[in-house]
């Protein structure tokens, strides 16, 4: 029972740390007009390793944290990250499982779709948004920076969630019949 609770708690703690780091430090790093999104990267790693339910639930939690810390419109980031977390989780559960390129494909696609979704959502909420700034000026560098950080973040999350620990293997084979 305690093991079952420990795992979501560890994942939630990782998301919490990522959200705090994102709003305080990473959103200030301006490289080629964009900055990395460590919340999305952490969410991608957890969703790929733990599945769609984890992805959706932690995506919602991450969005809520980011919107609360920034006093932004509650639910906007949650909606985007819930969908992103669920999609990455489903991808991990089906075609992406154990494939080396899965984290990179997930990050590239999720970054583009989250940006596009955010643009549409903000437009629908009546915010004055510039599609050129978001899609042309910042998106390419954001995708590049996210891809650059994919491997270290994925490896770190994998290690912290202790995935891939040696399982107990069979020591003896008995032939029946």
């Amino acid at each position, binding site marked *: 029972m305690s093991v079952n609770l420990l795992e979501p708690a560890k994942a939630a703690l990782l998301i919490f740390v990522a959200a705090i780091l994102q709003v305080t430090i990473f959103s200030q790093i301006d490289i080629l007009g964009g900055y990395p999104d460590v919340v999305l990267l952490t969410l991608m790693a957890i969703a790929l390793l733990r599945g769609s339910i984890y992805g959706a639930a932690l995506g919602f939690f991450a969005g809520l944290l980011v919107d609360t810390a920034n*006093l932004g419109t509650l639910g906007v980031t949650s909606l985007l990250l819930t969908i992103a977390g669920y999609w990455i989780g489903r991808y991990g559960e089906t075609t992406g499982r154990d494939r080396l390129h899965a984290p990179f494909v997930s990050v590239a696609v999720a970054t583009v779709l989250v940006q596009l979704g955010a643009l549409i959502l903000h437009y629908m909420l009546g915010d004055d948004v510039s599609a050129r700034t978001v899609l042309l000026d910042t998106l390419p560098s954001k995708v590049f920076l996210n891809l650059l950080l994919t491997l270290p973040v994925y490896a770190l999350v994998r290690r912290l969630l202790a995935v891939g620990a040696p399982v107990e293997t069979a020591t003896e084979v008995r032939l029946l019949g």
Partner: protein
Amino acid sequence: MLLSLILITVYFREPAGGGLHSVQGTGATVLRPFEVGANRVAAPFRDAYGWFAGLIHAKSENAKLRREVDQLRAAAILNANAAQQNSDLRAQLHYIGLPRFPQDYNPVPTDVISRPASEFEQQIGIAAGSSSGIRVNDPVVTSDGLVGKISAVAPHTAQVTLLTDPNLNVSAQDAKTQATGLVSHGEGPGTLTLSRVQKSSVLREGDPIVTQGWKVKGYSSIYPYGIPIGTVSGATNSEVDLYWNAQVSPFVHFDSLQSVLVLVPKTRNRP
């Protein structure tokens, strides 16, 4: 997903003092120590990066700054005389004016604890809130100039909408020629535009742009007169346009704000 949509709908429709806003304010207060802690841990690394980055431009900047110091020293002497004369004349006339910056305001110095989480947001979080006397629409400045205004307040934290936000317009004027217009976000990141300047007015490159601080029929600008915004860096003059549109280089570096001052009017009582 449904929960997110409900949150967006309720948050969007309720007033600023509504239930979700209050819960969010409490949440932001809870997160504040973590944000302050993360900022403190990152500060030495940020300073080190800034120091090395500054070294690269130091030599070329040195000569330019020396020239500027010479010009400004001469201007400062003239300004000091003019200010003294202005003060004397105001006293003699018993002149009643608008609130003046900075003498009619109590500055609340505070740390910046969060930055825009995405390109869609031009807001930052600060470590002071309503418990320090801060209210929505209070002007926010640094020693360089105008940063923006307070757009949301929680007890121990507040949200500042930057001047680069597309929804923020500030009435401003050319400090030399008195040409008036509206300062809003520019085309590129971190740039500003001065629009709606009458074609009969004069704008010169390098002119300082400051807040206008108007008052009409009981309504007044939330920004007092004279907060520096930037300098005119260029202007477009199309025959079909009714107004001048000028590019303004802001004095404030919006992407590297570490601390700000919130201007709380002296006439306001603290809670």
